[in-house]
């Protein structure tokens, strides 16, 4: 094909025009992910993972009072907010449908669009009413739970929050088969007693129901029946009854989530921002740079960048939120006979230098601990039950008949330095770890259920002892795939379930301590959730008991 100069110019013009068009195409007009900080900044601590909290499960017959909406009394309507809040998190929600998503940082996103039936206070973990005005168990066995909704609340699509909608949501949540669908245990019935009252009946005692109906495990974040009829709508929109609603046109899934005020929110005076932008920044250094340059008001932090954050003049908050160590799946010795011997498991605990590892890898942002932190507020008195004592470890191994050494297949997910540090300590006493690395959580679970690995290593969030027992210790627990059992821990679980919350606490503590003394696992560190914030945002609160921070409670600080 021969071309004249004019022809060449035409082709060049096509090339340039195509290039420019491609760079302008795609996206939406304002899918901007650059977060310009307005006059608001700063935040309280947040937990990137679960944090210990008070499980304020109501005693039978008790009802909890409604939390009064905060803010000034409206006089002729609240003034429209003008400030923008920009938040940085490291992992975005897998889905905008709370029934199909996990918990942790993503809870922060869901909280913006979804009020919950019961409010979990991030300041102290207390439970008060949110969409529910009153709530409580109506029997003595913690099986029948009732709550009455506030009148007049609506979802962001304008449909009413009534008993029928809540029943539909709870049934949908259970049927959706998401991560927490089984958290309630077996549900016998969910029924609308009247237009605003719902009764939930579970088959087995579950004093954690009030906590589950908060934002703790997403059950409480009810969504409009409009979305339940076609869940694919969750791909680009939110349908909660929270103070904000997703602006899909300015949202890029997995990167930027832009929220604007929900005109149907039941407490409009509590909407304090004209816009809330959540940015997903996976690299800790980039997160620090973003908040240091004012692009973010609040950011989840990391032990790697905390010192630099302080040097940059940011406030750094941290509180316990989870733990890590050797999770022993085969405490019964099914595939590795040695692990069925308590002395061997105790030897693993004695062999690991918790203080050294915590100090070297986490600094002040983790605590050496042999006891897993819990959301149940009992004191952790066995954190140093296993002092670093390699000689004791060798002695126990010899007594158990493994003085010549032992090889343990381990699956590890994340934190390779932590795994290697433990491996080095264990090698000193003759225990070799044969490590398989999982590249994602799905592969980890696949290897767990594959039945070839007796131990796994991955960071876990603190949870209630009820939850902990059901997943780690009880029959059928995902982290007890070989069905190991301890009759005393089983009995303690049954006992705690039959008691009011205050009385159950001592039993839960006893269960947790037996978990330590029997060396059911080798917990090594209690990890912290770390947050960075400035001074421009008020009302922040976070605590070990409060789970994840709640940005709907924040407000701009003038000046």
């Amino acid at each position, binding site marked *: *094909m*021969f*071309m004249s100069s004019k*022809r*060449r110019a035409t*082709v*060049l013009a*096509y*090339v340039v025009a195509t*290039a420019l068009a491609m*760079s*302008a*195409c*795609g*996206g939406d*007009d304002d*899918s*901007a*992910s*650059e977060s310009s900080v307005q006059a608001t900044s700063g935040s309280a601590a947040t937990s990137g993972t679960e944090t210990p909290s008070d499980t304020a499960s109501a005693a039978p017959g008790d009802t909890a009072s409604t939390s009064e909406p905060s803010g000034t009394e409206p006089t002729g309507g609240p003034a429209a907010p003008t400030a923008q809040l920009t938040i940085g998190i490291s992992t975005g929600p*897998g*889905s905008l449908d709370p029934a*199909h998503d*996990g918990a942790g940082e993503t809870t922060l996103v869901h909280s913006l669009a979804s009020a919950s039936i019961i409010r979990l206070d991030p300041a102290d973990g207390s439970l008060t009413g949110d969409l529910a005005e009153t709530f409580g168990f109506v029997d003595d066995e913690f099986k029948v739970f009732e709550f009455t909704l506030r009148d007049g609340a609506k979802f962001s699509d304008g449909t009413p929050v009534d008993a029928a909608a809540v029943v539909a949501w709870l049934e949908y949540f259970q049927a*959706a*088969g*998401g*991560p*927490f*669908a089984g*958290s309630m245990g077996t549900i016998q019935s969910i029924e609308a007693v009247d237009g605003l009252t719902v009764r939930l009946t579970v088959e087995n005692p579950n004093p954690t129901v009030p906590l589950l109906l908060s934002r703790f495990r997403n059950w409480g974040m009810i969504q409009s029946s409009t979305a339940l009829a076609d869940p*694919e709508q*969750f*791909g680009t929109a939110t349908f909660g009854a929270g103070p904000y609603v997703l602006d899909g046109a300015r949202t*890029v*899934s*997995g*990167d930027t989530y832009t929220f604007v005020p929900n005109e149907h929110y039941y407490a409009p005076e509590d909407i304090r921002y004209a816009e809330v932008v959540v*940015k*997903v*920044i*996976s690299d800790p*250094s*980039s997160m620090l*740079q*973003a908040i*240091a*340059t004012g*692009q973010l008001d609040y950011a989840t932090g990391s032990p790697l960048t905390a010192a630099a954050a302080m040097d940059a003049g940011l406030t750094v908050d941290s509180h316990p939120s989870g733990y890590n160590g050797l999770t022993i799946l085969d405490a019964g010795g099914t595939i590795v006979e040695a692990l069925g011997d308590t002395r061997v498991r105790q030897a693993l605990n004695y062999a690991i230098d918790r203080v050294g590892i915590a100090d070297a890898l986490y600094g002040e942002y983790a605590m050496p601990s042999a006891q897993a932190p819990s959301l149940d507020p009992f004191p952790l008195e066995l954190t140093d039950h296993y002092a670093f004592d390699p000689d004791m470890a060798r002695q126990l191994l010899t007594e158990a008949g493994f003085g010549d050494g032992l090889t343990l297949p381990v699956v590890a997910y994340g934190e390779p330095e932590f795994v290697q540090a433990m491996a080095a300590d264990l090698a000193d006493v003759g225990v070799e770890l044969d490590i398989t690395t*999982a*590249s*994602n*959580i*799905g*592969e980890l*679970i*696949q*290897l767990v*259920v594959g039945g070839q690995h007796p131990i796994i290593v991955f960071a876990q969030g603190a949870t209630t002892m009820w939850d902990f027992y059901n997943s780690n210790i009880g029959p059928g627990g*995902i982290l007890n795939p070989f069905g190991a059992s301890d009759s005393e821990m089983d009995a303690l679980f049954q006992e705690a379930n039959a008691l009011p919350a205050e009385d159950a606490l001592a039993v839960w503590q006893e269960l947790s301590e037996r978990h330590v003394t029997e060396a059911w696992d080798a917990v090594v560190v209690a990890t912290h959730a770390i947050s960075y914030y400035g001074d421009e945002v008020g009302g922040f609160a976070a605590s070990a008991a409060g789970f994840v921070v709640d940005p709907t409670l924040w407000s701009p600080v003038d000046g």
Partner: protein
Amino acid sequence: MATSEGRRRSLVAVIGRRLLVSLPLVVVISLLSFVLVSLIPGDAARQILGTNATPQAYERLRAQMGLEQALPRQYWNWLGDAVRGDFGVSLFSSEEVTHAIWSRLSVTVSLAIGAIVVSLLVGVSLGVLSSLVPRSVGRSVDAFAMIGFALPGFWVGLMLISVFAVKVGWFPATGYVPISASPTDWLRSIALPVFALSLGSSAVIAKQTREGMLDVLSSEHIRVMWANGIPRRSIVFRHALKGAALPIVTVSGLQMIGLLTGAVLVERVFALPGLGGLAIDSAQRGDLPMVQGLVVWFTILVVLINLLVDLAYSVINPRVHV
């Protein structure tokens, strides 16, 4: 002599033929990616359920997602929908695959085009310069280009952020502003990542340009031009560079294809919502519909880039038949 109408029809026919020929390519690549992603341990159901993946919950969710079907059936179902333009929804977020890709396309294209433009400007300039100056200077330019090639793009990005975003505040540390929102802010938001990305490409193009220029400058017809007193500028830019241009265009096309997916680390550092990051995350999680959609789109982009390269050939050298 062909009429302008005839030439236009010829160009359209060429483009049409290229796109038609790429269809079997798209099918083959999509099948290959489907198989490869299926082999990654830990499917989407396990990803979603995590430690709550009791056997019953897992089987139920797998059935809901259609993952219990045999792989050939899953692929056939996907292909049947894809030919109708329906790439399905993400197994995780339920977001339409097309929407997810479309919302990120401008970022990736901006980065790739920006990086290749900068690479060409810097690389060609360095390459021409190093071919004209004394050998020692030329080698210094070569070494400088190689350092740029050796430095990882994400590291360069972190350094750029540290200096130009944090210390002097000229550019944003993270984020992307679409050109439709603000051309100025768009330019500021891609400046640092484009520079970080272009360093390696500049080195490759500089090297290619230098070699090509040295080759052409030593040719007989160029020596004749020197002897005839033709101005240096004309010799270098009208004749020598033109002679060396075709390989430069080829290398640039390959670099641009590499930039499309190779930008993922830079995307992470600058928190840019590009296709590379989406591809990595989707593949790791086993989000098959998203991966398949991305594969199709990437293949189309590669075909388009190759087409642009060929058109550039015809502009540079009219004797080249496209």
